[in-house]
């Protein structure tokens, strides 16, 4: 089952949301609806699922409705239509007590400007969520200490938030959310207020923490690089609509529309795209027993000067060059064993392009992409590599 399931979510501000929704369903634009009803459409329609344990990034510029979507999940903003199921229970239909319970136990939130209580010490801030759960101080203190330790702020318990740097304050915000043991973390531009260096550091730490905690994280950002770095899957929002939902690679390699394309244009693709995304299936391979004649024939057919050699289980054994194959042919040999070059560039499918460039620079033959078990998955030629970096569509 999906952890969070959002169906047909809409949010309309103004006096007459019913009419605005009726007009939306007729396909009228935001602008037309504003003129006709005076209502502002914040979310036209949003439906998506968040899987347990993933980092789900909602990305968009300001005014795209991304923060509104996030706030509809715990009803800090009351949705105008649609449903939000968390673990199969519809939050939008929860009564007051049910809603408080969801906020106290199911979801914890991290805010852009930290949202810390300025009059409380760090440890008392971290305890806040536990206090809301009704825990006594003696129960909440050890949990809060543990969370604080997890974010690396042990020793700062008695400081006031304003005595800490921005990055440290956000760690307190993160610790406050983690301490509640909620399975879902809602992070609203959590790192946007931090300076770039601290920001990257926090992103790395979040990924590291996530690998241990395995929470379900909904992360809002306006920064594509951040989205691509953190997101297992990304939703790109535009004007209150979902423009595209996909993995970082899907979004980079096949943008759904011009808006997304314009967005991804300036991304440093070499850091996001991996060998898997750009590799091609090799046109032809040979087995060692196939002999030099077949190898030469295949190379002539495909117009290449090298050929990859695999065994029966498709494990990569090496590569054979045309001149070596021709020599074997002249010597009347029946196996390629003698001409096999085993010292060839290989890479794992998850290697980012930035690192492939260095490999490609040192070799003439295409780079072989191999799995952990040495299975031959594909090849990346120099031409493919350059085209992908340039952002060319395949």
């Amino acid at each position: 089952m999906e952890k969070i399931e959002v169906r047909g979510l809409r949010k309309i501000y103004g006096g007459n949301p019913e009419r605005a929704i009726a007009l939306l369903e007729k396909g009228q634009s935001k602008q037309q609806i504003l003129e006709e009803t005076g209502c502002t459409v914040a979310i036209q329609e949003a439906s998506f699922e968040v899987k347990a344990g993933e980092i789900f990034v909602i990305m968009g510029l300001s005014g795209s409705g991304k923060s509104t979507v996030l706030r509809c999940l715990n009803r800090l903003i009351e949705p105008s239509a649609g449903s939000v199921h968390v673990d199969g229970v519809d939050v939008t239909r929860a009564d007051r007590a049910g809603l408080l319970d969801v906020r106290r136990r199911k979801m914890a939130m991290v805010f852009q400007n930290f949202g810390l209580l300025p009059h409380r010490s760090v440890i008392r801030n971290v305890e806040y969520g536990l206090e809301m759960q009704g825990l006594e101080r003696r129960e909440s203190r050890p949990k809060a200490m543990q969370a604080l330790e997890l974010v690396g702020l042990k020793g700062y318990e008695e400081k006031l938030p304003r005595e800490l740097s921005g990055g440290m304050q956000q760690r307190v915000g993160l610790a406050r959310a983690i301490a509640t043991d909620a399975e879902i973390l809602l992070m609203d531009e959590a790192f946007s207020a931090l300076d770039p260096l601290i920001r990257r550091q926090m992103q790395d730490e979040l990924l590291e923490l996530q690998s241990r905690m395995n929470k379900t994280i909904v992360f809002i950002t306006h920064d594509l690089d951040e989205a691509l770095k953190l997101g297992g899957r990304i939703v790109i929002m535009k004007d209150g609509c979902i423009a595209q939902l996909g993995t970082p690679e899907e979004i980079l390699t096949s943008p759904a529309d011009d808006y997304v394309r314009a967005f991804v244009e300036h991304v440093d693709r070499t850091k996001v795209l991996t060998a898997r995304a750009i590799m091609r299936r090799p046109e032809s391979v040979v087995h060692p027993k196939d002999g030099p004649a077949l190898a030469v024939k295949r190379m002539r057919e495909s117009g290449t000067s090298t050929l990859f050699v695999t065994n029966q289980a498709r494990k990569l054994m090496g590569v054979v060059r045309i001149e070596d194959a021709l020599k074997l042919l002249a010597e009347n040999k029946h196996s390629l064993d003698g001409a096999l070059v085993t010292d060839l560039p290989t890479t794992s499918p998850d290697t980012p392009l930035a690192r492939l460039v260095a490999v490609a620079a040192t070799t003439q033959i295409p780079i072989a992409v191999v799995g952990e078990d040495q299975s031959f998955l594909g090849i990346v030629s120099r031409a493919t590599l350059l085209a992908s970096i340039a952002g060319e569509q395949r």
Partner: protein
Amino acid sequence: MSTLKIGEGFEELIDWLGTRGAPVFDAIRAVLTACISGLESALLLPPSYAIIAVLMVLAWRLCGLGTAVFTALGMLLIQDMGLWKATMETLALVLSSALVALVLGIPLGIWAAYSRVVERVLRPALDLMQTMPAFVYLIPAVLFFRLGKVPGVVATVIFAMPPAVRLTNLGIRQVPAEVVEAAIAFGATPRQTLLNVQLPIAVPTLLAGVNQTIMLSLSMVVISAMIGAGGLGEQVLKGITQLRIGLGFESGIAVVILAIVLDRLTHALGKPRTRSS
């Protein structure tokens, strides 16, 4: 004569209130009398040195040594001028008025912070209360509560309450929206949000309101003395009416000393001293 007969209308309203509201006014009078005389006895029963010592320690703890020395010297000067009793009466009057103004003003301020309608209604009312010449309040106060300290407190409360309302409202509205959102996101009820988050964060602004309320109460001392509220105001009036320049000046100095001490003490309350654990 105004063609709209505003003055006559007001007179009729006051008449009507005076006859219909008598039981209410009597009850208010009883409560205020108890409050004022209680405070007065608390200030006048102990020897003056005890009061001076208490004020000095307060000033020392809240503001530091300088203010403590000033407080001690100032209060000793007042005693030396023979104005101790009048000063304590005035202090009781000021504190009672401020207390009533805060008890009414802070909840009103909270209400205004939550409701834009309330804020919009209150704003002109508060402007009126603060800008109307304070003498005007004396007339209905006397009609409803007769002469003495009670109408003095009532007139003072009307004049001194606006900053308490305004600054409470402001203090709560100034709490960053994200902090309030955070409280709600972690499952705080509206009541918990107000008590654990909004009010504590608003405290410095709120205390600025307390300070202003007390200062405005003090500024009414002479005016309320005209309807028999007594205290230092009465001494100042005596100085004017009997041309006793010396007495008038001495009483004036006593008011100033009291004002400075009260201002420093309440001002210091607003500053964070020790952090909450």
